[in-house]
Each structure stands twice: as structure tokens, then as C-alpha cells.
């Protein structure tokens, strides 16, 4: 719990306190759990994707354009989030804020498109109760969306703390951990993009 006495200037600030180091490692382990969590959802989706009952097939409703926009929004947000950490490590609070807020905005944009996409599907007759395949789709993609939502809320909370307290070993560790979370959501999206959308479209169009 105690803060390390040696403040090695070469070590990024988030690693300078014992708490920071412990929390960062703990969060990595948590991400391990998240991998298992999303894997289970992916497995469910892979098993059920053909079970469309009377509803539309999955690939039928997917669209490349919306998908590309969503993907670029999230990929870019992951990049800007990385830049924010880069700025934080240069002790540039302004840079940190600029890039983190950009990240949040991109995340919000992504969420907006996702919600719009869900509305389109529901309008076309595919909702969570349509068939096993659509249940799996909505819960898998929805879980990712929920993670993004929580991530946005969480980053905002942490930015408020940074604004109040400045860069300390504790706040920087928090920012760093939230950035890990954000990048991880991008990793999950890469697989959603591949396993759900691309595979769905490949299956549909051959």
C-alpha cells in the first residue's frame, strides 16, 4: 500500500506506487477473465449462428458501410487513447485531456452507430426474441456495447479526478488502467468485426 520511496524518473508515474503496480497487474488478470467471458459469448454465437428459425439470416442485414464507420471510429479511439497515455507520460495534462476527450467522443460516435444499427435490425424484424441466432448476436454485440458505455462513464469519472488532483502516481495508474480497458474493447471489436460481421457476410454471399 505504501508508496515507493524511490521515484525513478525513468519509470512512468503509474508504476511508481506500490498500489499502482498492484492495480495494473490485477487489471491485466481481470482482462484474462474478460477474454474467457467474451470467448464464451463468441462460442455461443458460433454455435447458434445458423439457427435463424423463421427470422432473417444474420448476414442478410449486415452492411459494409456502417460496419466500416464503426470500425474506424473504434480503431481511431484506441489510437487517440494511446496518444493520451503518451502525453500523460510526458506529464502533459492538457494533451492527456485533449486526447482522452477525443477518445470519449469517438466512443460515443461508435455507440450511436451501434444503437442505430440495432434499431434498423429491430425494424427489419430481427430482435432478441426472433431466433437463437439473433439472441446470440444481440447479446454478444450488446455486451461489447455495454462495456463501451461503462468505459466512457468510467473514463469521465477518472478525468474529473485528474482535474481535481493533477497527475499523481494514483491518478496516473487509474488513467492507465482505463486505457488498458479501452484498448481491450478494441481487441474484442476486432473479433466481433471478423467473427460476426465478416463471417456473416461471407456465409451469406459465399
Amino acid at each position: 500500500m505504501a508508496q515507493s520511496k524511490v521515484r525513478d524518473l525513468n519509470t512512468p508515474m503509474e508504476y511508481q506506487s506500490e498500489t499502482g503496480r498492484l492495480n495494473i497487474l490485477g487489471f491485466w488478470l481481470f482482462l484474462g477473465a474478460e477474454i474467457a467471458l467474451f470467448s464464451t459469448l463468441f462460442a455461443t454465437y458460433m454455435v447458434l449462428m445458423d439457427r435463424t428459425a423463421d427470422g432473417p439470416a444474420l448476414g442478410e442485414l449486415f452492411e459494409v458501410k456502417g460496419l466500416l464507420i464503426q470500425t474506424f471510429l473504434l480503431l481511431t479511439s484506441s489510437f487517440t487513447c494511446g496518444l493520451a497515455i503518451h502525453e500523460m507520460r510526458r506529464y502533459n495534462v492538457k494533451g492527456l485531456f485533449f486526447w482522452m476527450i477525443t477518445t470519449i467522443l469517438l466512443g460515443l460516435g461508435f455507440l450511436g452507430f451501434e444503437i442505430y444499427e440495432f434499431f434498423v435490425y429491430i425494424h427489419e424484424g430481427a430482435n432478441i426474441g426472433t431466433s437463437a441466432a439473433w439472441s446470440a448476436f444481440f447479446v454478444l454485440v450488446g455486451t461489447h456495447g455495454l462495456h463501451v458505455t461503462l468505459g466512457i462513464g468510467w473514463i469521465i469519472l477518472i478525468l474529473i479526478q485528474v482535474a481535481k488532483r493533477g497527475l499523481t502516481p494514483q491518478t496516473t495508474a487509474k488513467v492507465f488502467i482505463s486505457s488498458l480497458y479501452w484498448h481491450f474493447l478494441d481487441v474484442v471489436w476486432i473479433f466481433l468485426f471478423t467473427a460476426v460481421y465478416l463471417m456473416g457476410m461471407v456465409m451469406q454471399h459465399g
Partner: protein
Amino acid sequence: MANHAAAQHKGIPWKHVVGFVLSIVLTLFAIWFALETDLSTNIKLLVIFGLAIIQAALQLLMFMHLTENSRTQGFSGRIQIGNILFGFFVAIVIVVGSVWVLSSGHAEKKPTNGEHEMKMDSGSMNHD
């Protein structure tokens, strides 16, 4: 490692820029490969999943500093890498295992028209 990391904090974050450009390129390539080429479904799936894994590795290494937190901080980096690798193992077991177990043998869903037999083995799927 620590010195190395600190040196990177100055100037343009090349690691991030390269990671970003690569991820865009990989994404576009995956879309093009999946939707615009005429290869068989199996090859397409193999390639796009391969690309996804590469891209995930990019995120972990370029953006998330997976290997960081190492020597000076008591070797957490190794734990982190081990953890992610074991996670990868579990993920493969869960996804490939479930698909394999639930779609082989008599347990597969009997197709309505007799000859349309559908078999999925080890994650690769035939749907034609």
C-alpha cells in the same frame, strides 16, 4: 526496459502511429479479402481470423504495453504475458471445443432436406 520506455515518451509516438496505420490496413485488407475475392469459404475464414489475431497482437504490444511492467517492477510483465497466453488457450478451447462438440456426431441438427448434410470440424465450416 524502463529506459527504453522513457525514451519513447519524447517526440512523435511512432509505436502508436505504426500500430494505428497497420490496424487500418489490416482491417481494409480483411474486408477486401472476405468480400471481393473468389476463394473458398474455408480459406477466407482462415485468413480473416489470422488477420484478426495479428491485429489483436498489435493492440496488445503497440498500444497496451503488454510486456511493460517488467524487470524494475518485479517481473509483472511475464505474468501479464503468461496470463494473456493462457487466456488465448482458454479462448480457443471454449470456441473451437464448443463448436466441435456441438456439431459432430449424431448431435448435429438434422437438416430438413435429406442430402443437405452440414458438418463443422475444429472451427472450420462448410456451408455450401
